[in-house]
Each structure stands twice: as structure tokens, then as C-alpha cells.
């Protein structure tokens, strides 16, 4: 489903290039659950952002569901992204002035989904995540774990094929973290959502099917769990 070939990302620092990612090759198959690990500054988040098309590499080839992303125009890339990728953040990034319901609804609005259909989809997700009772609350009225739950619900509302998560449990306590990871596993196994997560936690990494170790912008190891 996803293929990176010789992807590099660097910053110009004076006369020399500082590589954040150096000639990365990575193939991800449908249905995989990958955990990216590595010390701070190893390029985990940058890699995730490039996969998620939030950031562009300086060099290399990037294929996603058969499309050459590196050749696409901004508009096409955006369309591709909208239909296929959901994002979960460490800091949740819920929109403060929208209710739980509206936060979840927003991606559908941006995709011009009709009102009645939106209602059905959001109601479905609320039900699935067991947050129906919270739908009219604002993010500030929720706990961290609940907020992240909403974040995930929002990422999944448009039925993406790929879910990207940047340290999704980083701001949560261990119990909340476990619940989120259980949810991820369930999504991956029952719904067939491909998941790539960045994590520091050895334990959380074990939930995935493959662990990729990054070191200084290069893949140090790739182990199947």
C-alpha cells in the first residue's frame, strides 16, 4: 500500500547538509500495524509526517496506493490524503470551540458529505467508541484519555485506509494508554485499518506487527513481532 524509496530529508546548515532522514527504504502492506521507535532526533516524526504528506522529502520516491506522491500536484495530493489517511496526535489537537460531535464531524464537512449522511456516520462512531453521552461537551470538559478517544474517532470517521499516530499515548497515564492501544489493536485486527505509530514505549510497540528502529535518520532494524 505504501512504498518509500531512497527518501531523504535534510536542512541546509551553513555550507553543509544536516540529514534528518537519510535514504530511507520502507514498504508497508495493507493490514500491517507498524511501530516506529528510536531515540529523540532520530527522525521518527519527520518520517511519519512524510508518510502522512504533511511534509515533503528533499529526495526520493513515494508511492501510496499505487500513486506516485512525489509527482502529484498539491491538489491531487490533498485529495489522496483526504480519502485515505487519518491522523492522531500526541496533543490530541481537538478544536477547542467545537463540541465532541462537531470535532468528529469536521472531516466529513471538508469532504462535502451530505448532512444526513454525516449524522448517521457520526452517530455510528460515537456509538462505537462509547462516547454518545459526551457528544455535546467541549474538549476542555474531557479528560486526556477521553480527548484522545475523540481524536481517534475523528481520525477514523472518514474511513481511512491508513491511520498515522504520533505518540498517541504520550500525554496519557498508563491505564488510559493501555485502553488506547487496545483500541488500536482492535481496529487493526477487526476493521483491517493499517496503522503506523511513533512511540517511545517498548510496551506499546509490542502491540504492533512490526517494529522499525530508527537511528540518526536511517533504519537500524526492522523486526516482526
Amino acid at each position, binding site marked *: 500500500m505504501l512504498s518509500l524509496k531512497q527518501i531523504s530529508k535534510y536542512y541546509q546548515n551553513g555550507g553543509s547538509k544536516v540529514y534528518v532522514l537519510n535514504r530511507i527504504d520502507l514498504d508497508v502492506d495493507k493490514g500491517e500495524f507498524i511501530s516506529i521507535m528510536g531515540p529523540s532526533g532520530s527522525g521518527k516524526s519527520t518520517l511519519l509526517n512524510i508518510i502522512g504528506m504533511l511534509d515533503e522529502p528533499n529526495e526520493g520516491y513515494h508511492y501510496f496506493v499505487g500513486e506516485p506522491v512525489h509527482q502529484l500536484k498539491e491538489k491531487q495530493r490533498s485529495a489522496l490524503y483526504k480519502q485515505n489517511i487519518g*491522523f492522531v496526535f500526541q496533543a490530541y*489537537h481537538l*478544536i*477547542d*470551540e*467545537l463540541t465532541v460531535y462537531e470535532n468528529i464531524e*469536521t472531516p466529513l*464537512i*471538508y469532504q462535502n458529505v451530505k448532512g444526513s449522511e454525516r449524522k448517521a456516520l457520526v452517530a455510528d462512531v460515537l456509538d462505537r467508541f462509547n462516547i454518545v453521552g459526551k457528544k455535546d461537551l467541549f474538549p476542555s470538559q474531557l479528560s486526556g484519555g477521553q480527548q484522545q478517544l475523540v481524536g481517534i474517532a*475523528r481520525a477514523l470517521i472518514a474511513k481511512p485506509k491508513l491511520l498515522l499516530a504520533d505518540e498517541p499515548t504520550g500525554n496519557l497515564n498508563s491505564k488510559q494508554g493501555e485502553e488506547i492501544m487496545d483500541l488500536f489493536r482492535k481496529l487493526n485486527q477487526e476493521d483491517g485499518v493499517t496503522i503506523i505509530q511513533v512511540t517511545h514505549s517498548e510496551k506499546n510497540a509490542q502491540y504492533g506487527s512490526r517494529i522499525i528502529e530508527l537511528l540518526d535518520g536511517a533504519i537500524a532494524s526492522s523486526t516482526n513481532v
Partner: protein
Amino acid sequence: MLKNYFKIAWRSLVKRKFYSALNIAGLALGVACFMLIYLYITYHNSFDTYHANANKIYRLVNVLHLDKTEYEKGSSIAMLRALQKDFPQVQKAAISISKQSFVVNIEGNSNKRFKEDKTVTFTDADWFKTFSYQWVIGSAAGLDEPNTAVLTQRQACKYFGKESPVGKVFSINHQQIKVVGLIADEPYNTDLNSDIYLSLSTFKNVNPKVENNYFTDWGYIMSVHNSFVVLNSTNQQKAVESQLKRMISKRLGADANKYYTFKLLPLKEMHFDTRYGGTVQKSLLYTLAAIGTLIILIAGINYVNMTIAQQARRSVEIGTRKVLGGSTFQLFMQFMAESFLTAFLAVIIAVVLVWLTIPQLNQTLFTDQPLHIVSYKNFYLFCLQALFLITIGTGIYPALLLSRMSIFKAIKNNVWNLSAGTNRKILVVIQNVVAQALIVGTIVIVKQVQFLRNTDKGFNRDFVMTIPLGETSASQKEQLNQSLRNMPDVQSFSYCHRSPASESMRGSTVMYNGRWQDWPARYAIGDSAYCKTFGIKVVAGRNIRSEQAVPEFLVNETMAIRLSPKNPSDVVNKNLVAGDGKGVIVGIVKDFNVRSLLEPIEPSVLLEDKFAQTNLAIKLSDKHNAQNIDQLKNIYQRVFPDQVFAYQFVDEQIAMLYKKEILQQKLIGIAATVAIIISSLGLLGLVSLITLQRTKEIGIRKVLGASVARIGVMLSTELLQMVIIAVLIAVPISLWAMHQWLQNFVYRIHISWWVYALAGCTAILIALITVSLQSVKAAMANPVKSLRSE
């Protein structure tokens, strides 16, 4: 989708209450100002445009080429009659003698008496065929008879109450006058208003002194004559003017065209041509329009600045929205919806503000011509246009900037430091330049108007009042003199035409030493006590004596130099023909201003003219003694039992001369205040955002040991720098502009350096107060809190 944009926009406004309030308040104030200026301009542009023939009506005016060119709106009645009869291009013609004052006695039991001050007009039926009036009862035909009158409803109600006035009788100067018609009150937007129309043939009956040739002599050119013609088409103006020129040389002699040029002034220009009695200069309207635009500009800049500055807090939201699939266009529309909502609320508040302020303004500022909304439809259309222009003007730049932000940067909350926003700095500077230029303008105008109002050139106005008298018999005069001499507080009194520094236009060319001079002299008309009453100093010769067989004259220094350049004091005891008399110059007085200080001091003659001496000027020892006024009233009523007592202090009369300047001063003062308030709101918003962005930095600095004062200074410096740069730009601009403005005045103040220092200091002080409140608050905050929140 649209509903969603507005829902989110509304929530976002509510969430950032403080900034939204600043934004909306600033915009609303600016928009209200702009609307008021719009209403003011449309109101004045509507004057006398409602007449059916408005485009084809012209006023006959003349330019008198003497040593100095004079403009007059008058003509002679005979001339207009000729236009009516002999000019094929002239469809209709109308004349009136306006601004006449009489005491009106209502016949009957009540025996009521009214003093009509400059509200009586003499005219005939043609007037009502030329201009559009609404007839309630009767028709214009009745005005072709002598001793008939047409009243407005307002006036009829004043005289006769609710009864129908037609057929009723009142008297003026012992002449019985019958009411033959009733017209609706005139619209507010006309300069041709009058409450009482008497038939033209009544004029001689109520003014027995009027000479027989008044109606037939081409030379009887008076400024109270309002002559209008309706031409068949608009392109005949020049043809009529040149034909009139030929006719004048036939009637008034070939020389007449050397002095007089008669012109047709289009009706729609009449309201603005101050040379011919227009009340508002076009230039004032242009200035106001410019100021209104500038104020909207500063208010708009505020909004743009604050919206962009808030990006700091919203970048995560923008990033998230993009991650959730929002396109640049969708985000752009989101921000435009916010701008629209802000502008919408601002416009609504502005309309309410306008609605609340108009009555206040009419009471204080526009007492002469109260502001009216000419067309509500146009006003609402204007509001709608304003709404869209403001939305687009203020919305596009921030919306483009924010919606195009890269997701990656946004989501990382990679805040631009405010100091990087050069564009915004420029905007703040522009805003302050405008505000400060207006402050300087206000100070200069206030000083100039004060100077005009309070400066007496060569005379002293203190504690002098005037009482209008009308016709006074010798015995009445004697009675008055007796009583006044017995009042200890009356220092002196004089029967005169006007006080010095008045709007009197009396004057003519004079014959000195047997030769006619080719320049006109102004007349100051009064008796031998005139000099004493007004503190005019005789510098050579002696004062005049009243009622001499050979009239005696005083001339001013300017005139003495004009008459005898080599040795001005030679003019004493020389013969002079001035006014109606051949007399002798008995002395020279120090130059004093006969007219307003808007005119230079001209050659002037102080002379007696019994018919013109209709005012009594009294110098009191103490102005504020109400007892004196009561006593004067009693004396007056005893001597003139059938007249109405009225008085005015010369102070107030002089202030009336500078009405236009005073209005200008007040309008620009208000504009400056609004501009300062709006730009202060902007500064307040900006500084609070800056502190917000720098919370972490402030925390770190405090941990490292920086004092509150130091941090306060750090936060204020940047904005103060901008204000100071603005001072440096505003000073030369306003210096130049005010210098230009002052060139309009013959007598003007010198702009001293402290005006600029004061304006600069005021601006800096206001900025300092605005900025320091916020920055000190930020500086005092506990660093533990601010650091933890990051």
C-alpha cells in the same frame, strides 16, 4: 457548509471575547464616523435638488471688479424683469426680497405680537411657479395683489393656532395684510426657506422709505434680491450671460461692464458657493470624506493586525483543520466568514450609534442646518456596501495569509515572532501617523479659531451689547438717552449700524479732494459715541460731532495712507464724499476690523447715517450683571411698548462670523478623538497578543532574575518605537498641510514647535498608558505558571 462557517465564526468570536470586542468596537466606531460623514455629505448634496426644474434653474449673481474683486448674489429687480420679457431662452423668472425683519401684529382679541427676524420674504406668483411648493390651501395667484400673504403651516399655527389662516388678517408697520394661501412647511434641504411670503407689491407699503425707482432702476442692485431664471435648456447659460452684458451697457452705460460681470450660477452649486452665500464649502466635504476614509482605514488596519497576530494562538487549529482535510479555500472561507461576522456586528452597532448621535450632533454642532437622513433606502444600501467592502478589505489579507500557512509549521505551533511582521509594523505606523496628523490638525485649528474669535484689531468688544431698535422718533431717542445716562453701569452708548467685526457689507467708492477714487471704502456707521463705546482710538484730528450741517467723517489709517500716501495726516480737514453726504474728514482712527478677520483691514470711513443706525450699542462696566439687562428691558418696553426686546453681546456676534471655522474645528476634533481611540484599541490588542506570545520568554527571564520594570520596558519598547516613528512621519506631513490651510487666512497664528511636541507627547503618552498596563500585568505573572503551561 455556509451555516457551518458562520457557526464556527460565531463561536470563535465568542471564545476570544476580549479581542473580538476590541475589533468590533474599533470597527463600529470607525464605521459610525464614516456613516455620519456620508450622511452629512449626501444631506448637503441634496440641497434644492427636489425642485421640478432643478437642473435648469440658475441664480443671477454678479462679480464686482474693483481694486479687490467682490462677489454678490444680488441683482436689480428691473434687470430680472428684462430677462423675463426680452430673453427667448428664459422660460420663467422669479424674484424675491428675502431676509426681511418685521414685527407682526395679529389682529383680534389676543393682540399677539411676534418679532420676525430675517424670516420675511417678498415675492410674487412666479416664484411658486419656478420652485416646487406644496399648496395646502389656496394658490400662488393671490400673491399678485398688494397686501397679501402666504404662510407655511408652521407659521400659520404660530399666529392663528389650529384655525384655518386663510382670510385672516395681520399687520406690519400699520398695514393690514390678508392671508391668501397656506403652504406645507418647506423641506429641510433648501436654502430658499422663509416662513412668511408677502406679495412683492406690499414691499413699498411696509417700507415707506423705499424710493420710487426701486423696482425700475437697473442700478438698484441689492444682495437681498434673489433672482432666478429657468432656461429652456442647460446649454444656454453662456448665451444669456453675453446677451445680458450687451443689455447692461445699454442700460447702465458702457462703463458698467468694466465693473460688473453678471453670471448665471446653477442652482445645484448655490449651496456650496460661499462667495454667493453658500453655507458649506465643497472643500469641507472633501476633507471630511478624506478623514472618514482614513478612519475606516485605521479601523481596518486594527482588524487585520489583530487577526494576524492571533494566528499565534490559532496556528494549531489551522494545522489541525488542514490535517482533517480542510482545503486552503475552505479555510480561507472560514476566515472570511469571521471577517464578515465581525463587520456585520460592527455595522449594526454603527447604525445604532449613528441613530443615537444624530440628535446630539444636531443640538450641539449643526444647529443651523440640522442633519437629516435624505434617503433611508440609500443609507441602508450604503450600509450594505460598507459591510461588503469592509469584509473584503479587512478579511482578504489575513485569510490568504493564514489559510496558506504550511500544515507542518502550523501544527508544530511554530509561531512567527511578532517582531518579524514587518508588514504589520508598517500598518501600525500608518495608523499612528493618521491619528497624530489629526491631533496636530485639531490643535492648530483650535488655536486659529480661538485667535479669530478673540482678537480685536483696533477696538475693544468687552462688555458691549447691542439692542436692535427699528424706527425711532426723536422723542423716543431722547427718552432712551435720559434713562441710559441714569444707569451707573452704562459707561457709554452709541446708535450705530453694526458693531465692528460684523458681516456688514456696506461701502462704496468715495470722492476725495474732488476726485473719485477707483477703490471702495467700507463704512462703519455710528454716531459720535461710537469710538468711545467700542474703544476705537483717534490718532489724529478729533472725533466726529453728531448731526452737523456738514457731515463729519473719520477715516482709518489704511484709508489715510490710500488717500495721501506721502503724508497721511494731511487728509484731516479735507473734503470727502461718502455715503449720501458731502462732508469733511475730521480725524484719523487707528485701524480696526470692520468685517471679520477672514478679510484684511480695508480703507474704512466712520460716518453717520440716521437710517442705518438701527442698533443701540451699550458698553457696560460688568457683563455678568443680570440686573442691568432687566433694567434695560424695562427702559426699552417703556419707550417702545409695541416692540419686542432683544439683545446680543458683541462677543456672540463675533463668534457667529466664524461659524464655518468653528464647525470645522469641532468636526476635525471629533475625528481626531475617534482616530486616537481606534488606534489605542489596536495597540491594546497588539500588546496583549505580544505578551501572550512571549509568555515563555517572560517566564525564563524572570527565573533568570529580570525585574518587573525591566520586562515591562522590554515589552513596551517595540510598540513605542513604532509610535515614535509615526511621530517623525506625521510631523512634517501635518506641518505642511496645516501651513497650507493657514494660508486661507489673512490673520493667522504662527505654528510654534510646541504644537508638535504636544501632539507627539500626547500620542506617546496614550500609547505608553495603553501598552504599559498590559505589559506590567504580564511581567508580574508567576513564572512557574507560564513555564509549566508550555
